[in-house]
């Protein structure tokens, strides 16, 4: 998907997948553009938070949502030069099914001069019932103004 979308998306994919922590969690940028991003993360033994059930730790899902939210902000048409998370709230609807890849979709639905507002959701193979939803605010770092 992202490869087809052209140069900008390819650069974004390389950029996000090169982030050390995203790499450690084996995140994969599936799609990006116009303030939206889709990032997936495979199940892994390392990420298990409940040894008795094999369910992935909430922290790993937060990390996925955070990365996806940041990517959505960066891809907004009012393109900020960079972004950082101000706050992020995650609601956990149900445990993710062990063994299944988790896919996060984030949308930056509003950008002001200095803040990007994001909502996101995460699913496993059951697309009808979200594993988690999230809402967050991100900084919008503007490139240095070019004087007219």
């Amino acid at each position, binding site marked *: 998907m992202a490869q087809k979308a052209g140069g900008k998306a390819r650069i974004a994919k390389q950029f996000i997948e*090169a*982030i*050390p*922590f*995203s*790499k*450690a*969690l084996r995140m994969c940028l599936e799609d990006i553009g116009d303030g939206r991003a889709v990032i997936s993360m495979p199940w892994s*033994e*390392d*990420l*298990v*938070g*409940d*040894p*008795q*059930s094999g369910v*992935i*730790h*909430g*922290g*790993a899902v*937060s*990390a*996925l*949502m*955070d*990365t996806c939210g*940041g990517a959505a902000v960066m891809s907004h048409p009012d393109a900020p030069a960079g972004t*950082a*998370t*101000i*706050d*992020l*709230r*995650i*609601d*956990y609807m149900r*445990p993710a099914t062990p063994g299944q890849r988790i896919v996060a979709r984030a949308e930056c639905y509003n950008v002001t001069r200095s803040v990007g507002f994001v909502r996101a959701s995460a699913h496993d193979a059951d697309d009808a019932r979200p594993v988690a939803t999230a809402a967050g605010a991100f900084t919008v770092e503007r490139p240095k103004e070019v004087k007219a």
Partner: protein
Amino acid sequence: MTSRPRPEPVQVIKERRDRALDLLVQGVPYTRFMGIDFDRRGDELTALMHYDEKLIGNPFLPALHGGAIASFLEVTAILGLSWQSLWDEIESGRVAPEDLTPETMPRLPKTIDFTVDYLRTGLPRDSYARARVNRSGRRYASVHVEAWQDNRARPFAQATGHFLTPGQGGGQRAGQGAGQGAGQGAGQGAGQGAGQGAGQDGGARGG
């Protein structure tokens, strides 16, 4: 001569508590993956996330990844909450740490929601965090966590989370697994009932 058992040697008490904590922490693969361990003083835990290059989110600054920070806070909250009830179980004698095995450990609380405030850039160095259980009832618990690096008075992130506690009231997967029932259901309900009324945790637990 045998009227009253002698108090146990301090080393025995310490070993028993550390063993229970170790089982709790080492049982969670994600905690190991993140390089998080816990320092215990009495019942108080301080979490330590050892710096590692893989925790970086912005290589140019460089800064820790927001997701790594969120993970650190959530791990600290869950284990802090779980430790509090395990501590009560052990100290009251309802659970014998010698009998604890990875299979019979109490189930961990489940996160309902978790909100992280990022206050400052996380620098590429070790991080510390402490959780405070503001309320722990039969079904729900509210936990606040603060994380800092060099200076305790300047936290770089904080979070509040709500959790389903794993006792009988916790619902969801109460009946799962045959072996785990022993230490959990009834004991926990009772233990938590005591601390429930108001926020008296701080005073009552200081000793």
